[in-house]
């Protein structure tokens, strides 16, 4: 597409628009996510954050606009293929496989690269080699004591943690996290925030998050959406001083 694709920009949206039966949820959004950064998407409810998210991961088809991943146009690519290319998302509402154990949840993600996923004649035992790696990931999100429990039995916050572990299992280049901290207790928030920071070291993260203090602490760049449009963009210090953002999002009383 571009004569000289900017190596720095790993994920890009151009003129992204989504209409739902005449209602424009996302309007002409241009977004650039730089490699190796944590990029946060914030905005009032209904601003279109989740929609942008779904568009980027192809769970929704854009009405107009273009999405580029590593310079390649992925506007027409199927969701599963996006994931194969290293662009992996999490969900706003906890997304685990409730009646699989925690270990199996993670293993499902790990088994894909083996290429045996259609092999219905192979034994499950061929997957046992993955257990060590799975347990490592589970450890990383402090779920080790739960490894043998069904995911359904986990408290809400732990499910979010499991979801992150599963996402990590794919070793994605870009992780898209939709409100990863929502529903977590204080004790988990800090741990998970630290985890995100840690895993972001060698990859790119784009996240939607309401918890401003975390966003402030974690993110390199913040994009503020309002009514489907980008209102402001930049590091926290800049965005948080923007009057419009204060009005639309943080409230006008801001000093």
């Amino acid at each position, binding site marked *: 597409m571009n004569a000289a694709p900017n190596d720095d920009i790993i994920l890009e949206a151009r003129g992204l628009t989504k209409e739902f039966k005449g209602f424009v949820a996302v309007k002409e959004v241009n977004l650039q996510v730089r490699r190796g950064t944590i990029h946060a998407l914030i905005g009032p409810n209904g601003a279109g954050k989740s929609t942008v998210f779904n568009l980027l*991961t192809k*769970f929704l088809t854009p009405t107009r606009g273009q999405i580029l991943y590593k310079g390649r146009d992925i506007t027409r690519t*199927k*969701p*599963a*293929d996006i*994931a*194969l290319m290293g662009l*992996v*998302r*999490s*969900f706003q509402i906890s*997304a*685990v*496989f*409730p*009646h*699989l*154990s925690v*270990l*199996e*949840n993670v*293993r*499902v*993600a790990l*088994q*894909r690269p*083996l290429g*045996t*996923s*259609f*092999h*219905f*004649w*192979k*034994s*499950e*035992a*061929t*997957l*046992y*080699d993955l*257990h*060590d790696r*799975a*347990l490592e990931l589970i450890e990383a999100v402090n779920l*080790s*004591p*739960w*490894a*043998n*429990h069904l995911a359904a039995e986990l408290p809400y916050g732990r499910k979010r943690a499991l979801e992150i572990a*599963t996402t990590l299992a*794919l070793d994605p280049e870009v992780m898209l996290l939709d409100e990863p901290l929502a529903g977590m207790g204080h004790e988990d928030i800090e741990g998970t925030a630290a985890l995100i920071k840690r895993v972001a070291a060698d990859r790119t993260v784009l996240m939607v998050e309401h918890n401003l203090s975390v966003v402030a602490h974690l993110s390199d760049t913040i994009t503020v959406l309002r009514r489907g449009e980008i209102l402001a963009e930049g590091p926290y210090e800049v965005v948080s001083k923007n009057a419009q953002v204060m009005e639309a999002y943080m409230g006008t009383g801001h000093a």
Partner: protein
Amino acid sequence: MTAHTSAKTPAGGSGRSSAALTVRGSATGTALAAAGFLLVAGLAPYVLYPVFLMKVLCFALFACAFNLLIGYAGLLSFGHAAFFGGAAYIAAHTVKEWGWSPELGLLAATVVAAGLGLVFGLLAIRRQGIYFAMITLALSQMVFFLALQLPFTHGEDGIQAVPRGLLFGLFDLSQPLTMYYTVLAIFVGGFAIIWRTVHSPFGQVLKAIRENEPRAVSLGYRTERYKLLAFVLSASLAGLAGGTKAIVFQLASLTDVTWQMSGEVVLMTLLGGMGTLFGPVVGAALVVTLESYLAATSLPVPVVIGCIFVVCVLLFRRGIIGELLARMPKRGG
């Protein structure tokens, strides 16, 4: 989900490897149950009427095949009779009219059922839940009308007087016991395929899809293909069951392609326990027994069956085996 016996330690395993127990615990349980089953089934024809037992086995395989879809892929097909009954016609026709040997007839039946499954699957797999059920139902009705009208199926008459023939040119299937053990072997084979499928890398993905399809997609699985493969597998095995039934009863008829038959297999599975390996077997045995018992009484069979259906749906959605498993002591932790 039973014992904690750890038969084998997974690679690199230490204390932590207990994580694998979930899976292999249930595997041991299943193996025990399977051994028990084989013992009983092996001796049964000396006590019970073999034709009755063969009917049970055919339906049990049919129900297991159906269960592969509903229990492990979360897809309710309301048109499985098309594969069961359709394959019965193929087996009957190839064996009777073309003079094929029974094993070739069964192979043909299975292959045709697989092809039919592929067509159904391609059309239906894009929709979920009730839509999927409705579409499979309507498609199977199409097969029903084809069976009614195509010349080779002989309409209401069905294909009659199908010779049982010599299996592999060696075993005379007109001997009741030879036929019985052949059916038993087919059932065990089919069941083994299902068991393996459920406990395979593929089965894992299937379960994941059933549990949370969008999440599976986000992990990079093209879920439609997995569902399609599951559908085709299920259809093939349903076809194998139907073909076997045709050989046993020496007849292929419309009864097996009606939508009531599709409903019956749902009932068997629901009654025994969806998503449990042995549930459909138990369900099929119960329903077949019940039907033949009721036929001799003045009680209206469909009413009784309907009542069981309603009671299951309202009160025991887990089915017999499902309830049993749920009552067993839970895994530790």
